[in-house]
């Protein structure tokens, strides 16, 4: 499986880009120990104009490079935890509904439909507006709206696997429902879930950026989205203030999608393993 993934050049490129962004996020406090929101230089320095600010400064004289590095932390953190939350909800509810069927499945389906009738981004905005906009609350809100597709996927997998002979055989050996769900079916259902989760991270990063762009992000933390939002006001005078963080979002989302495609090919036996 890992060999199949590594043969895929696009996937390896995606993984490399992702690793670079993760390294940047990890090293941000080392490279830029000061608060990226501090005003440290002359406003509107273009990239390359001053060697100490390689990506320039914004309208308040804040270092863009420091913002990008610290923004990566916020984006990845939110992307990761929102996905973990979405996966936890979606997989557990989908597994229970799909495996047991009956009224449990009905309840699970109604719950998912409740979420699917509301546009997810709208729900995030409402939730963040009700709670205070902190990193934790934004993560919670994004996680809460991202579980329905995972739930449907997991449910479909469990519905087909629960009819398999090896599940009947496992019951014949005295395995309980919990053991069958976790040890017998889940490992089989995992590949499509893994593939989906990398796209979920990308979606969460986009949602956070959009929130910050609208000014609903955490005001005390710099993020790529908030940098674009601030740069928008001076778009004609200093377009690089929106272009640089915008490019970072593109690269991060692209990397995650490439990884997802690579995983899909490596994990999906129907696409041919060799």
């Amino acid at each position, binding site marked *: 499986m890992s060999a199949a993934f590594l043969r895929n050049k696009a996937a390896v490129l995606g993984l490399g880009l992702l690793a670079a962004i993760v390294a940047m996020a990890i090293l941000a406090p080392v490279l830029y120990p000061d608060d990226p929101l501090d005003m440290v230089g002359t406003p509107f320095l273009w990239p390359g104009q001053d060697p100490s600010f390689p990506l320039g400064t914004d309208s308040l004289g804040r270092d863009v490079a420091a913002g990008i590095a610290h923004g990566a932390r916020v984006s990845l953190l939110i992307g990761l935890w929102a996905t973990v939350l979405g996966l936890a909800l979606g997989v557990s509810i989908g597994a229970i509904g799909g495996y047991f069927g009956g009224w449990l499945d009905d309840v699970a389906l109604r719950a998912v439909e409740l979420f699917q009738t509301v546009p997810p981004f709208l729900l995030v905005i409402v939730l963040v507006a009700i709670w205070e906009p902190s990193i934790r609350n934004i993560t919670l809100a994004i996680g809460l709206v991202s579980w329905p597709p995972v739930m449907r996927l997991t449910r479909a997998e469990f519905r087909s696997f629960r009819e398999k*002979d*090896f599940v009947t055989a496992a019951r014949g*050996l*005295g395995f309980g429902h919990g*053991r069958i769900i976790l040890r017998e079916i889940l*490992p*089989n259902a995992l590949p499509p879930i893994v593939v989906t989760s990398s796209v979920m991270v990308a979606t969460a990063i986009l949602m956070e950026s959009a929130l910050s762009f609208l000014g609903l992000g955490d005001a005390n933390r710099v993020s790529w989205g908030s940098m674009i939002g601030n740069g928008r006001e001076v778009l004609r005078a200093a377009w690089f203030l929106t272009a640089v963080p915008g490019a970072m979002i593109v690269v991060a989302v692209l990397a995650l999608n490439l990884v997802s495609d690579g995983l899909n090919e490596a994990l999906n036996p129907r696409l041919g393993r060799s």
Partner: protein
Amino acid sequence: MALLDVHDLTVAFPSVTAVAGLSFSVHESETLALVGESGSGKSLTALALMGLVPRPGRVSGAVHFGGQDLLALPEARMRQLRGRDIAMIFQEPMTSLNPVLTIGRQIAETLRLHEGLSARAARLRAIELLDLVRIADPGRQVDSHAHRLSGGMRQRVMIAMAIACNPRVLIADEPTTALDVTIQAQVLDLLDRLRRDLGMALILITHDLGVVGQWADRVVVMYAGRKVEEADPIGLLRRPLHPYSRGLLGASPRLQARAHYRLGRLAEIPGSMASALGQAGCPFAPRCDVRQDKCDSVAPALREMGEARLVACPVAA
């Protein structure tokens, strides 16, 4: 004293009664064969003994085992028994193993569940079990996935899983139907040896009368969910009494005279089991060649005919 005593077992679905008032018993270290064509209720009988009849099937009657009625046990208690005291081997070795787990882990899982072994001890025991079911190089194969194994090897792994906790009753539901003829004999020999070595009772479900003749101690012939004849296998093969048993035997190819289709047609039983639906009297009457008028109205009771022989046919003699 029978080890497992099935009394008046009935498995009913909304549209059809798949097993109707079936009674039989199995003694320690005995091989009992359940014979009948597809749809005669053999597999559902096995699932009923295991407490695994799928919804919306309803099971009634009694299954006495070790001083308790299995059908009256709560699910949690039944779950402890399954795999430990009563185990089952399924028909399809190709799909009965989990494709993403190594066979060692699947065997070990049972041991950890029922015997509380540590991961290390369970793995060692799994290797022993693979050796016991005659899998070559068990120390290496224990880490194989099912797709690396042949059908015969997979069925051996299934057997290893089933006997892992030394069950007292082993149910084998057509264990060799999906296998090559040469492998069939090996697997049945293995089951027979394990039955003797471990002192298990074996319930062998099959439609192959050759298997019955060679490996069974007693045979129950089923038709449309009912027991139509019970006999010792040699008696049954020499002189089947129920017209259905006679028909089954006549429909089995034999190597002697007129086996090839150019030399003579294989006998068949006319009609299909579907004709038993809604039949008030004997379920076999619509296909029977010695049918009498009363067969359509009176359901035949089991009659004792000779030693340990029961036949549900008033005409048979």
